[in-house]
């Protein structure tokens, strides 16, 4: 009897399997059509095909959601054999449960809005078709990742998501910075993927299965335990660290902002970067059973929360503020998972997707009007871009955790979970909550308040940067861009209300094979204190950046060493790229091996050739053309061979 029946009285979702595969398959067709036909379809049509496909998957995802709700959050698994080699079965299968249903909704709804918005943002780009082809490729990969019922298939789509991310970060590949950022993103996340691969090999060889439900059962039965369990958990987590930009592999995400802004909103804020959180949540029973692995998750999450928030404080680029904010928020989700807060983590993933996508699209709208992301060149935009301003403000309030917006509920829960489990972690999370409000409102005041500073002139050589109009006269973006902003605002406001009555939590917790370890009740103490923290962060930003009672430059001078440290991103890029990759790896180690290869290995080969040549010069004396001598040598040799053969094989 499957274990999950012990938990809830949930039924099995009756959704037909075909619908699930259709969700995966529709965007593939969109990709193949757009990519295959290329110039043969009109530019705008490529966008419509892609948007139509993703909207269709959104509709199907809603059907799935209601079906799973109807089954009280039950689990349905459909598996097929893909290939069998030796002892291993590789399966292709789909799994649908509360967690899957929520992820499907997040991915398809944000993707649909972002793709609609992109029609405005990418308008006139020579790579318009390519953009929509890649967007469809991404949708397929992400949906496959979420639907996969086994670790191997999950890994397949996990890597494909990495490919689409690479292609979209490097979308403007003629820019050296974009090409470098794309490469960096793929390689850094692949370092984490080594852990995931190792976990895959470990579970495959030790347990002979990749099925998620089978692995869960092995954990509950105690068969999968001890060091193997911890190593497996850490391997899974390593993959999550790469994809979800956790310390120490967070360095790729800020650079990924080289991609078009809607890409940043969809992939590098709402969905792909949350895949790591999803992965750990999917294998949550492993982390429940392994305190060591859980401890690592919690601390890596907490460090990431702090690093992200601190660096976000000193960024001058609006999009980079949001990027570091994303790193920090993903850290919150990991932290939650590390303190048993499965429901809280998934809930924060859910609400964050809406308000962070909103903020990124808002920054894109600002970029469209000013042709820059540099906040030093913005200011006063609340008058010229009222819709962008209002929606951005609501998104920021939600992110800061102001009641009754979405972010309040989810962040509050994480703080409550941390409070129960570990006060140090709570402290870090609470301080970072203050910083979150501070950096977001610093950005708001710099961007939307004060005097407009003129934007940036369009450089002649770079025609691909999206801009319509004149930077000195900013204007509100077109409706195709503002309507998605408004819709996302609804999510940023209301997504948190699903917390009432633990509706959301019970739904996603039904995906676990066992009820959660502890249910943290709503606490007024935590709620009020976190609201005070958030409000004081906003107030501090107001004092410094709006009222300018304390000049920012003074603070900078006072906290100089720290400010420099934050500005240099704690030196990670310097350490990784300048020291490790360039000096240690390429210029020392690889050079050493290469020199060994040419000066030792190949030199020996050439030397042996030379020796033979020299020897041959000597032997040439014998080869004098006298047939008699040849005959003698031939005869002696033949006799020698016969003797040897007879000695070796006596008759």
């Amino acid at each position, binding site marked *: 009897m499957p274990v999950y029946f012990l938990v809830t009285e949930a039924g099995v979702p009756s959704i037909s399997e075909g619908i699930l595969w259709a969700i995966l398959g529709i965007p593939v067709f969109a990709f193949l059509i757009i990519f295959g036909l290329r110039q043969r379809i009109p530019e705008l049509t490529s966008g419509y095909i892609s948007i139509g496909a993703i909207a269709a998957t959104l509709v199907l995802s809603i059907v799935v959601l209601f079906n799973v709700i109807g089954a009280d959050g039950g689990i349905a698994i459909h598996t097929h054999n893909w*290939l069998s*080699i*030796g002892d291993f079965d590789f399966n292709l299968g789909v799994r649908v449960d509360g967690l899957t249903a929520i992820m499907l909704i997040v991915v398809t709804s944000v993707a649909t809005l972002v793709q609609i918005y992109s029609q405005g943002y990418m308008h006139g780009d020579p790579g318009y078709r390519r953009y929509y082809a890649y967007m469809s490729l991404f949708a397929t990969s992400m949906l496959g990742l979420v639907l996969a019922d086994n670790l191997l298939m999950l890994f397949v*789509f996990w890597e494909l998501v990495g490919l689409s991310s690479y292609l979209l970060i490097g979308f403007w590949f003629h820019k050296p910075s974009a090409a470098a950022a794309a*490469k960096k993103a793929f390689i850094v996340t692949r370092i984490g993927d*080594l852990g995931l691969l190792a976990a895959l090999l470990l579970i495959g060889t030790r347990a002979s299965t990749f099925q998620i439900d089978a692995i869960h059962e092995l954990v509950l039965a105690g068969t999968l335990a001890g060091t193997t369990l911890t190593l497996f958990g850490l391997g899974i987590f390593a993959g999550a660290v790469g994809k979800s930009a956790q310390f120490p592999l967070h360095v790729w995400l800020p650079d990924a902002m080289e991609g078009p802004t809607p890409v940043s909103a969809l992939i590098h804020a709402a969905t792909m970067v949350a895949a790591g959180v999803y992965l750990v949540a999917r294998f949550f029973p492993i982390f429940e059973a392994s305190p060591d692995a859980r401890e690592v998750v919690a601390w890596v999450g907490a460090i990431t929360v702090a690093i992200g928030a601190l660096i976000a404080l000193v960024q001058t680029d609006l999009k980079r503020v949001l990027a570091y904010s994303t790193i920090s928020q993903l850290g919150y989700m990991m932290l939650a998972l590390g303190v048993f807060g499965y429901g809280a983590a998934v809930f924060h993933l859910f609400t964050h997707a809406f308000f962070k996508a909103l903020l990124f699209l808002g920054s894109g709208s600002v970029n469209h009007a000013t042709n820059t992301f540099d906040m030093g060149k913005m200011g006063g935009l609340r008058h010229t871009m009222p819709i962008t301003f209002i929606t951005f403000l609501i998104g920021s309030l939600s992110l800061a955790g102001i009641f009754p917006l979405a972010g309040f509920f989810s962040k509050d829960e994480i703080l409550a979970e941390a409070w129960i489990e570990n006060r140090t972690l709570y402290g870090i999370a609470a301080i970072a909550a203050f910083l979150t409000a501070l950096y977001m409102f610093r950005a708001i005041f710099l961007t939307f308040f004060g005097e407009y500073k003129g934007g940036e002139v369009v450089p002649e050589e770079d025609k691909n940067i999206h801009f319509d109009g004149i930077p000195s006269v900013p204007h509100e973006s077109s409706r195709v861009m503002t309507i998605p902003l408004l819709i996302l605002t609804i999510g940023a406001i209301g997504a948190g209300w699903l917390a009432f009555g633990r509706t959301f939590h019970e739904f996603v917790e039904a995906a676990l094979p066992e009820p959660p370890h502890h249910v943290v009740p709503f606490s007024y103490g935590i709620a009020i204190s976190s609201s005070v923290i958030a409000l004081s962060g906003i107030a501090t930003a107001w004092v410094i950046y709006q009222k300018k009672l304390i000049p920012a430059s003074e603070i900078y001078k006072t906290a100089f060493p720290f400010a420099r440290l934050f500005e240099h991103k704690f030196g990670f890029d310097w350490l990784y790229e300048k020291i490790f990759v360039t000096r240690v790896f390429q210029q020392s180690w690889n050079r050493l091996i290469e020199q060994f290869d040419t000066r030792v*290995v190949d030199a020996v080969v050439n030397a042996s050739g030379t020796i033979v040549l020299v020897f041959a010069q000597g032997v040439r004396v014998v080869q004098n053309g006298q047939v008699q001598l040849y005959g003698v040598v031939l005869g002696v040799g033949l006799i020698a061979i016969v003797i040897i053969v007879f000695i070796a094989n006596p008759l």
Partner: protein
Amino acid sequence: MELTALVFLPAAAAVLILLLPQRYAKISKWIALAAAIAALVLSVVLFFSFEHGAGYQFVERYSWIQIAGFDIQYALGVDGLSLPLVVLTTFLTVAAVLVSFRINLRERAYFASLLVLATSVLGVFTALDFLMFFLFWELELFPMFLLITIWGSGRRDYSATKFVLYTLAGSAFMLVGILTLASSAGTFDLEILASSVFGSTMIPLSVVFAFLFVGFAVKLPIVPLHTWLPDAHSDAPTAVSVMLAGVLLKMGGYGIIRTCITILPDQAKDFDIVFATIGALSVLYGAFVTFRQTDVKRLIAYSSVSHMGLVLLGLSGLGVTGLAGATYQMLAHGLITGMLFVVIGLMYDRTHTREISQLGGLARQMPLLATGLVFAGFASVGLPSLAGFIAEITIFLGAFQAFEWAVILAIFGAVLSAGYILWTLQRVVFGPPKSEWDSLTDQNQWWEHVPVLGLAALIVLLGVYPAIITDMLNPTLEFVVARLSI
């Protein structure tokens, strides 16, 4: 008769081409193409009419030479291991002929050599007699030597000589091994040898195993017997690089499975740790050296050293999974590296440089070729849904059961390959377009489109529908492994 026709069809076409009068030299490429396509069609027919099972099929046996109590046979046959490699060979031959359509120096000799090369490789994969196997193995050297010295570039004489001498040195060891086994069992028949128990032999069996292994390992190649490969690749014409990386290296891996492991299973069990060590070493060492390369072809050559190390790592598992992974890697690497060389070759035809520092920004002027390079690059990195991933994951799983440490070392190759491939893409196709390439055309001839698209299609096919190969492979390998477990 099917296999005889298949193996000698290219050689017959070669003879026909050589008999052409000079004024008809222009049609030699068409004859070569027709022969290559005919061989491909025939091999595909065989592939689909093969009944999944352990033994050899389409077997032909004729007594050939009777001497000193030995019955040396003319014997051909294919099983689940060799048949996919045969199809790979015929497929890449077509690709090699097509990418040679620009050749206008001594066309008749060129295409004849290319076809003889195909015959020799097909012979190696289908021979059921060890001596015949060896003859085909040696036959390959003649066309290769000519192709590199006459149509090559750079230090072509040095590279060709190095290639030939290296292979011959390995073959000398191999021949001693072959003769020892044959004299002990009284036959050269690979099928009988595979079920023979060897008594006392002149040379200890473990030494015989090592000798055979060295002969094959040179071809694979393994570190430290690999330095001929980058030289041969960088100086060879495109089509030869395609054949060399695509199928010639695979003769090494095939030989190890077909002879070393199948005929001497007990010795294989002693040598598995050698496989694992050299395999992991080759993966990492090859990758490190790849990072330092400045010539695109040398870069791909060194990456081949790294990727072929995986073949050996897979063999170290000595189970169905590991052997299947190793075989799959041979197929995947043949297609992927073949495609890399095709695309690089087509770029070289236009830019006349392979120096990475001189290239750059080609994605603007040559979007199709750039797409091809990015595709093949990601295939080489082992992207899931493409052929290389299936091979890698299977190899890792198979070897992990036996040598966890070797696999843990080798998986770093996955990051290293991402590093050097993506760095190469960044420097060759991305970045600001360079004005000196503005006048160049993109991939625009049908004989350029066909090999690129064909290879890409097969790489995808093997990535998403691996059962087409593994279902054929499994029974054969189960037979091999059954002998290992006695």
